[in-house]
Each structure stands twice: as structure tokens, then as C-alpha cells.
């Protein structure tokens, strides 16, 4: 809270541009994303120039590429000012209060979005823009893939380019979806939701975002280095043959994993220690539970992926043979490490979206969340079981046939806690007063789509059925129904719900509904058709197929264009809204979580007076709980309290 908790001198205006610039910042005044990129490129070039002549083995190319990426990451992080604080401290001139205020973005207008900024709201925006950009890039690749597959014997792209794009599409989308809810809303909204004035470790928060940015640039550079022609799972030994795009993949993953670990620690500590007075676990909004569960999964399982990538890097760079069977290694070692992370990763994508749905449904049904305890049970059950199912991706690999039975058992069991989430949503909307905003429409689309993803997961968990369906487009359709039908629909619901708080403007409901129907219809057409061609026997990741799959593929491509059109309408809506949308009031939906109790735009320090909580935020249809008079004037922990109540920052309601 240190840097974000400041006296509310700026409250009332938008809190940033109108204030006189305090004396602070020092060298940070000159550092931004531009200096970061320049410095990154320079250090990368230096690393390349040093290591290229030094290394002569047949592996030299990959070693040099990896070291060059490392140089980029170090140079970028230094150049954007990520280490200014520690360096100043080491040099005996630690940051002053004014410096820290500068780092939190005070008085910098829009430029703070391009800087190493410790304000959780700025970081939330940065994640949102990065996530939507990568989603767009991955989406364009999806359109290329579907265009190539629109008819058999098509030659829009070469087989080589096709394979390269399929892998890139996969990993970019996995990355985008895993940050698209926890990044923007976990950072912007969650601290306010628990009545805090920021994250527990604001500098680590900025560090985690910019590490991710550096990693995304590395990952995207694969596009110019031969792509990722191995599928997103990059199975060895094929990945040992692959082009330098593989090195971009593994270095990108290492940076992303580092970023995720830092973000996870930060969010878990924030959620545990910074909840406001009165917010015990029973009163903590379900979204916070979901973010915590997701972050626990990140923290526990990204290291497996990191280990897998380090060994892959060694195999490619210096000729070890961890994964090369001809050198005594094992492709099954890679597969286990990969899926040890890869399956929890599915839930890292899914849970935040699903939990956003749980948070939003009560607001638009005007009913309390049905059975908070069952919801928590479901979240904890999914989190626990998701650690024990990874080898269901390996039923057909021949690794351990004797374990197929046990892994089938754990896999099918996970449908019980997942079902509990459905019970909670259905129980919440049953007999509610349904307000069909665009956000609520996405709650319904989640229910429709995710149940298809869930049920087909039971099919794939069945070992004999998996022998037939594994590696076919049936699998592709299934996981798109969970990741898009669950994760991305949850994101859209959350986006329409929280964007007014983030931007101060209301999204256009008409454009929202147009884009909703295009997305919902297009999505179902693509992936229902894909289930059918998968059942017919079309393998995934093929650039060409037999004529008997032509009908299903043609329909799927048509659906993909409808889906793409929906995404464009959505993007148009966002652009129009940001430029001249209707101004949002503080609480347009009648939400009862704490982020709706502060003004819009949110002042730099979030709350003029820290709220005190006397109930959970789902008190629809119940008398408004009264705050305990003795602590009604309490304003948070000593030392961080503003000098007095600030009329401009209160929504006029009693804090509850």
C-alpha cells in the first residue's frame, strides 16, 4: 500500500491531469516504454555481437538466439525503469516520498500508461490493452487457419506457414486468455472490491506486467523466426528439429512464467492481508475467491512449465538430451512436465471467467448469490482436482497404460465441483428479476456454451472413447467450448460490467447486443461443426483434408467469419465508447461490492474513506445492513488514513 496510499489531494477531479506536478521522479521522468524498447534492442544487439563469435558448436545458433532474447529482456526492464528503486536503494539514495508518488502516476496524465507505474488501476488498463491486442493477433491467425480449411486442397498458405501459424495461434490465445480476466479486473477491480487502496506490492505489480510485455514481444518475434510449427504444446523431439521460433517460444514462456509467479504472490498476499475491516472470508466476494484459487494454481504449476522450457533450451542450445530418446532422454518427460502445468492452465483460463459470472449474476438477477459455501466448495474442489488429472492428455501416448484408469477416475470426478458452479448460477437466477444487459446475456451464453464444453470433457475423459477422439478436431472443439465458452464469455460479461468503472463511460448496449449475437451464433456454428468433423475422423492441426470433411469445414469457416465480425463490432463499440460514450455514474448497475462505492473516475487512492463491511455484498431483497455506529467513522489502518472525510469521493451511501 505504500506508494498508492497518499493523501487525497487529487480526489474530485480525475485525479491525475489537473494536479500540479510534484517534485519527484528523478531519472524516472525520462523513462518509458520507448526508452525500454531502445535499451532492450541495444543490449540484445550487444549480447548478439558478443556471443556470436564466442560460440562455435553446431548448436550455436540457438544458444545465440536465446542469449539475445535474454539481453532484450534485461535491457528492456532496465530501460523502462523496473530496477530504478532497487538501484537507487543500493546506491544509498532510496526513493523519496515524492519519487514514489511519481511512480504511482501522480500528475502524469495519459503518459503514465506507458511507464513503469505502480498504480493498480494503470496496471489493470495495461493488462487489458495487452490482452485484447494479443487476442486480436491470435484471432487474425484463427481467421487465416479457417480460411485455409474452408475447402479441401486449398492453398491460401503453404503447409509450412500453416503449421507455424497453428502453434502461434495456440500459445498466443492461451496466454491472452489466462491474463484477460485476472489481469485487468484482478488488478483494477479486486483491490477496490476488498476495500484496499492498492496491491500489497505495487512495484512487483508493475514488474509482473512489464516482464509479461517483454515476454510477449519475444513470443511474437517467433512469427519472423519460422513460427511454432509444432502445435502450442511443442512436443519434443519435433521441437528439437524446429526453427528459431522454438527459442522465441521457450524464452517467451520463461518470462511469462516469471511474470505470473510474481503476479500470483502479489494477488494472494493482497487478498489475504488487505481486506478491509469486517470483511471476513464469508463476506469476501466470490470473485476474490476465484482470483485467489487461480493464482494458487499459477504459483504451483508454472514452475513445471519453466522447468520444461529450461530443459528444452538446454537440449536445443548446448546439445543435452533430456527429451531426445536417441541420447537417453524421454519425450514422456517433456509431456509430463508440460501437462503438469498444461492442465491446471486450463483452469487458470476458465476459473476467473466462471467466477466473474458468479459475481455478476446476482447483480443482474437482483438476488443474493445462491449458496456462497457451495460456490467456494466448487472452486476449491476444481483447484484441488485440477492438479491430479494431467495424464489424461497422455492416454494414447503409451507412457503408463496402468495409470489410465486412475487418471480417468480423477478426470471424471472434476465434473462434480464444476457442476456446483452451475448450481450456484442457476440457483441465483431462479426467480430473480432478470435485467438483460449485454453483460447478463454473456452470463446466459456462458451457461449454454460451457455445459457443452463440460459434457464433452466427460467423453474425452473416458479412456476407450479417448483412443478414438484424441488428436481429432473433436478435442479442438471441446477445449474451445471450455476456454472460449467458459473463459472468454466470462471475460465479456466482466468487461461490459466493469468497463464503466474503469473508463468512466457506458458501452453502447445496441452495438453490444449486435456483437453478442454475432459472437454467440458464430462461435457455436464453428465449433459444433468442428465436433462433427472430429467425430468423422479429421485429425487436428492438418492443413488439408479428405473431401468427405468438406461440408463440416465449410460451415465452420462460415461460422468463424460471423464470429470475427462480432469481434470487430465489439472492438468498434469499445473505440466509440472510449471516444464519446455516455458518461457513467458511480454505480450504474446497482452493484453492492465495494468498487461501486467509490466515485467514477476512481481517484488515485481509490477511497477517500476506507469502507467498513458488515455483510457480504449480495444483500438483494434484504434490508440494507446498518454499519455499527461505533466504527462508522473508522477510516482504515492508522497511518494511511486521510485527514478527514472527503465529500467528493463518497457515493453518499453509508459504507457497509
Amino acid at each position, binding site marked *: 500500500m505504500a506508494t498508492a496510499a497518499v493523501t487525497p489531494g487529487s480526489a474530485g477531479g480525475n485525479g491525475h491531469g489537473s494536479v500540479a506536478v510534484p517534485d519527484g521522479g528523478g531519472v524516472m521522468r525520462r523513462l518509458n516504454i520507448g526508452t525500454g524498447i531502445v535499451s532492450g534492442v541495444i543490449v540484445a544487439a550487444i549480447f548478439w555481437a558478443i556471443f556470436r563469435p564466442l560460440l562455435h558448436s553446431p548448436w550455436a545458433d540457438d544458444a545465440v538466439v536465446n542469449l539475445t532474447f535474454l539481453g532484450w529482456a534485461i535491457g528492456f526492464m532496465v530501460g523502462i525503469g523496473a530496477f530504478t528503486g532497487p538501484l537507487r536503494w543500493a546506491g544509498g539514495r532510496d526513493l523519496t516520498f515524492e519519487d514514489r508518488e511519481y511512480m504511482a502516476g501522480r500528475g502524469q496524465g495519459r503518459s503514465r500508461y506507458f511507464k513503469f507505474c505502480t498504480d493498480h488501476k494503470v496496471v489493470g488498463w495495461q493488462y487489458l490493452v495487452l490482452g485484447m491486442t494479443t487476442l486480436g493477433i491470435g484471432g487474425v491467425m484463427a481467421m487465416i487457419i479457417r480460411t485455409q480449411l474452408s475447402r479441401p486442397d486449398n492453398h491460401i498458405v503453404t503447409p509450412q506457414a500453416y503449421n507455424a501459424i497453428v502453434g502461434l495461434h495456440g500459445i498466443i490465445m492461451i496466454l491472452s486468455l489466462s491474463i484477460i480476466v485476472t489481469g485487468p479486473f484482478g488488478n483494477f477491480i479486486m483491490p477496490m472490491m476488498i476495500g484496499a487502496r492498492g496491491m500489497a506490492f505495487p512495484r512487483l505489480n508493475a514488474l509482473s506486467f512489464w516482464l509479461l510485455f517483454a515476454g510477449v514481444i519475444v513470443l511474437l518475434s517467433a512469427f519472423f523466426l519460422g513460427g511454432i510449427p509444432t502445435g502450442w504444446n511443442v512436443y519434443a523431439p519435433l521441437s528439437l528439429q524446429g526453427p528459431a521460433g522454438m527459442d522465441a517460444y521457450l524464452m517467451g514462456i520463461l518470462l511469462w512464467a516469471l511474470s505470473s509467479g510474481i503476479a500470483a504472490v502479489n494477488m494472494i498476499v493482497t487478498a489475504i492481508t488487505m481486506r478491509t475491516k469486517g470483511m471476513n472470508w464469508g463476506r469476501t466476494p466470490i470473485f476474490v475467491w476465484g482470483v485467489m484459487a487461480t493464482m494458487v494454481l499459477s504459483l504451483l504449476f508454472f514452475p513445471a512449465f519453466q522447468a520444461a522450457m529450461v530443459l528444452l533450451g538446454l537440449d536445443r542450445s548446448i546439445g543435452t538430451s533430456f527429451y531426445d530418446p536417441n541420447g537417453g532422454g524421454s519425450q514422456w518427460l517433456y509431456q509430463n512436465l508440460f501437462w503438469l502445468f498444461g492442465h491446471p492452465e486450463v483452469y487458470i483460463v476458465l476459473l476467473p471467467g466462471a467466477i466473474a459470472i458468479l459475481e455478476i449474476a446476482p447483480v443482474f438477477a*437482483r*438476488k443474493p448469490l445462491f449458496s456462497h459455501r457451495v460456490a467456494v466448495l466448487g472452486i476449491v474442489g476444481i483447484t484441488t482436482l485440477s492438479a491430479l488429472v494431467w495424464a489424461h492428455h497422455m492416454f494414447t501416448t503409451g507412457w503408463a497404460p496402468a495409470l489410465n484408469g486412475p487418471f480417468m477416475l480423477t478426470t471424471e470426478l472434476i465434473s462434480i465441483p464444476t457442476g456446483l458452479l452451475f448450481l450456484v448460477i442457476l440457483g441465483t437466477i431462479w*426467480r430473480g428479476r432478470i435485467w438483460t444487459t449485454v453483460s447478463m446475456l454473456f452470463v446466459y451464453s456462458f451457461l449454454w456454451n460451457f455445459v457443452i464444453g463440460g459434457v464433452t470433457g466427460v467423453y474425452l475423459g473416458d479412456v476407450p472413447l479417448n483412443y478414438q477422439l484424441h488428436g481429432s478436431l473433436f478435442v479442438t472443439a471441446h477445449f474451445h467450448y471450455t476456454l472460449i465458452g467458459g473463459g472468454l464469455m466470462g471475460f465479456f460479461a466482466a468487461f461490459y460490467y466493469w468497463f464503466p468503472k474503469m473508463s468512466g463511460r457506458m458501452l453502447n448496449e445496441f452495438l453490444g447486443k449486435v456483437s453478442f449475437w454475432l459472437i454467440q451464433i458464430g462461435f457455436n456454428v464453428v465449433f459444433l461443426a468442428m465436433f462433427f468433423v472430429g467425430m468423422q475422423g479429421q485429425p487436428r492441426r492438418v492443413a488439408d483434408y479428405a473431401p468427405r470433411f468438406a461440408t463440416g469445414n465449410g460451415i465452420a469457416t462460415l461460422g468463424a467469419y460471423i464470429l470475427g465480425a462480432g469481434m470487430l463490432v465489439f472492438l468498434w463499440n469499445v473505440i466509440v465508447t472510449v471516444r464519446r460514450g455516455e458518461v457513467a455514474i458511480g454505480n450504474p448497475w446497482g452493484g453492492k461490492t465495494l468498487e461501486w462505492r467509490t466515485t467514477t473516475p476512481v481517484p488515485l487512492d481509490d477511497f477517500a474513506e476506507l469502507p467498513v463491511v458488515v455483510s457480504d455484498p449480495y444483500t438483494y431483497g434484504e434490508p440494507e445492513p446498518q454499519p455499527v455506529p461505533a466504527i462508522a467513522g473508522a477510516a482504515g489502518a492508522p497511518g494511511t488514513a486521510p485527514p478527514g472525510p472527503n465529500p467528493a469521493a463518497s457515493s453518499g451511501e453509508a459504507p457497509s
Partner: protein
Amino acid sequence: MADPPDTVEKDASASRIHVRRAVLLWVVITVLGIVFALFVPSRVFPFQASSDATRITATFIAFTVLGAAVAAVVWAVAAYTLWAFRSGSGGPPESDGPSVRRHIRAEAAWITVSSILTLVAIVWGLAALSSVSSAASSDALIVNVTGQQWVWSYSYPDEHVNSPDLVLPVGREVVFRVTSKDVVHSFWIPSFGIKVDANPAEVTQTRTTPTVPGLYEVRCAELCGLYHSYMESQVKVLTRSGFEAWVKANGGKVEP
């Protein structure tokens, strides 16, 4: 919250009507789903030419019947709430819904039913798995399968035949010993419902019994490089005598 008693009674009867209508909707959707399950998947799947393929189709149909009933619960309730409880004006609702935070019977019923259904899926799967993994019969035909970028090749160790084509006798169990010369491939015969990865320096195994003579597809189901899309060959299932004739024609010997 201090509703007069007659409101409470009206409320309870309204609740029963809502439940009855939603159940009716559930029945309709479930019936449609079951009709779909019985008629569509068996026609979409590739021609079923082995004992495994038949069993897999049966499993798919059974799971679709159960899945339809489950999905119908979600869809029926969702659709019904959208139809019956929608706030009229399109704007913010004027009042809140009832404050229902728990319903022990509904929770208990949900957990019980979903556990039973999951148990059914698990028992079904374990039973099918045990029959798939039982020991091969002693007179099974052995075929060594080798994948390499981007072709399959086959050899018959007992018959001393090497072949670029897979030829099998009908009605005799066949054991495939699968390996790879380079990267990971996956040996898949959609019409037989079998698949196992071809790993370098390892031999994996799968088996089945072809039941219908004919010509079927062999696919690679694991991305294996540039021409993965074209890594396919055919399996020819012949009568026993036809198979023996093929073995002899290729210089092999037929065991008595």
C-alpha cells in the same frame, strides 16, 4: 420481509407452477437430446469395422443420452428464467428478487445426482477399459508398425513380410507394436477406434479385431512436421484365405 400470510401462500403456489413448467421444459429438451443421441452419432462416426469401434460408438451414445439430460437441466432453467423472470421495462428492475441464500434440499439433490452420474461414467469407463486391456490371445497376428516423417511402414515378424501397406485378415485379433524413427507420431485407424503414439526408441502397443472386410484409412494423429496433413495410408482387411494368399505373394510364410 413481513409479508402477510396469503402473499406467502400465493408465493409458494407460484413457485410450484414455475418449477412444474421448468421441469416440463427439461423433459422436452431431454427427449430431443435423446433422439439426437440415438440417431446422429452412429451416422457421423466412421464406418465401424472392429469390435472396439462398435463399443466406442455405444459409449458415445450412452454418454450423449446422459449428457443431454444434464445439459437440459442447465438449458431449461436458463431459458425459463429468461422467459418468466425477465424484468419488463428493459431497464433496471424496480424491485429485488426474493432473498434465497440456501436451499438445502436442492443442494443435496444436485450433489447426489451429479455424483451418481459421475460414478456411472467412471464405472462404465473402467469396465470398458478392463476389456480393452485384457491379455491378447495367443494366436494374435503381430504387426510391427513404424512411423517416420511422413510415411507408415509395416512388417509381419512371424510371416517374414515387409510391406508399405497394412493388410489384415478379418476376425483374427491383431497386435500392433508401434514405434517411430524420428519424432512422435500417432497411429490411428478411425474405423477400428484405436490409436497409440509412435515414439522414437520405444515400442507401444495396441490391438483390435477387424470385423468387416474392406478398405479403411490409417492416419497420423500427432503433428509430426511439414507434411503431417498427408501422413496417411490404408488398411486392407481381407478374408483369412485372401490374407494367406497375400502373404505368400509377398514371399512370406503362413503358419499352419
